[in-house]
């Protein structure tokens, strides 16, 4: 599996799956200036969607107030060890990718 920007820890436990995801991303707000005083253009992850067996289990819209290396944790009912989660992210620039992670 090619390494993307997402890392996920998904654990099936007591009938639920606890999902923790972190993305490697600077989350530039567009409010910062560089050393010479020019505005650094905004570039942050806008959406992160997590699907399990074709069904969306979490959809996140993010703004400028999300920290660098955004983190998200949630729990959904069901999920089996060994199955895969599909995680799709979209940047404000339009860049997008889908990455996968196994439930442990």
């Amino acid at each position, binding site marked *: 599996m090619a390494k993307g920007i997402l*890392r996920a*820890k998904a654990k099936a436990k007591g009938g639920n799956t606890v999902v*923790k*995801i*972190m993305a*490697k991303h600077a989350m530039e707000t567009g409010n910062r200036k560089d050393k010479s005083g020019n505005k650094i253009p905004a570039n942050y992850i806008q959406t992160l969607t997590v699907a399990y067996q074709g069904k969306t289990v979490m959809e996140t819209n993010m703004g400028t107030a999300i920290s*660098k*290396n955004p*983190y998200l*944790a949630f729990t959904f009912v069901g999920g089996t060890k060994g199955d895969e989660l599909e995680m799709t992210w979209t940047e404000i620039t339009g860049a997008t990718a889908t990455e996968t992670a196994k439930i442990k």
Partner: protein
Amino acid sequence: MKIIKSLLAGASLALVASVSQAATSGNTLATVDPEADRLALQSYFQKRFPKVAVSDYVNGIYALDAPSREQWQEIEEFPPYEFDVEEGEELFNTPFANGNSYADCFDNGGIGIRQNFPRWDEGQGQIVTLELAINQCREANGEKALGWKKGKIAKVSAYMAYTSRDNVFDLQIPNDEAKAAYLDGKQSFYARRGQLNMSCANCHVAGANILIRADLPGPTLGHVTHFPVFRSKWGELGTLQRRYGGCQKNVRGTPQKTQGEKFRNLEFFQTYMSNGLVVNGPGARK
């Protein structure tokens, strides 16, 4: 963990004797007593924070301040240094142009050895920190040395620390030259510097867990165990000596040289103070 406990038991038995010894553990090679210094420091913190186990000091200020600890634990749910450890592992395993790799420079292939640094190197006649050893390894293999404070060196160091987690620091002072290095480090630790006229000890011994404006300085016991550190303020990983320089600037002093003799000796002294504690680097800090 067992090792820690037995060390603890030993420490408390030796307490009474050590405190009075510390007062006389002097500043000359003949009188300095590193073991007495270490036990005196432990007993100082134990007296001030009787409810905190010595083994918990590896968590720095989070051992002492509950509200910060809560936030830190949230961060540790998915620590920001994980990417760096991953990248560090990749760097560590990438062979140099000559076919050798980091593993060839270190005992045990570089795995699980963080607790042995910094150490007195007989051949070089100086204290060698892990970061110095990393760059010496690179140069011995015809590679360029890395910058000392952050980036690749911190990542490689973080990976090496990560493979050493829970190993117990047990630095040795094999001879008088090493003891002199320890003494020099001790001197630096207690030396007031800069316009604010503060020493490391001011903030991290007497000042531990006391607000400096809005910051709570961490205790020096266990100070070095979690380095390199992903500092939220930096937004990235940095080495211990990057922090040393930052601290010296904070007291409005001109920082000493990164990986220069003074800083290496200081790191040796500080790490010796944490003998008996475990490696838990890399860490996440505010």
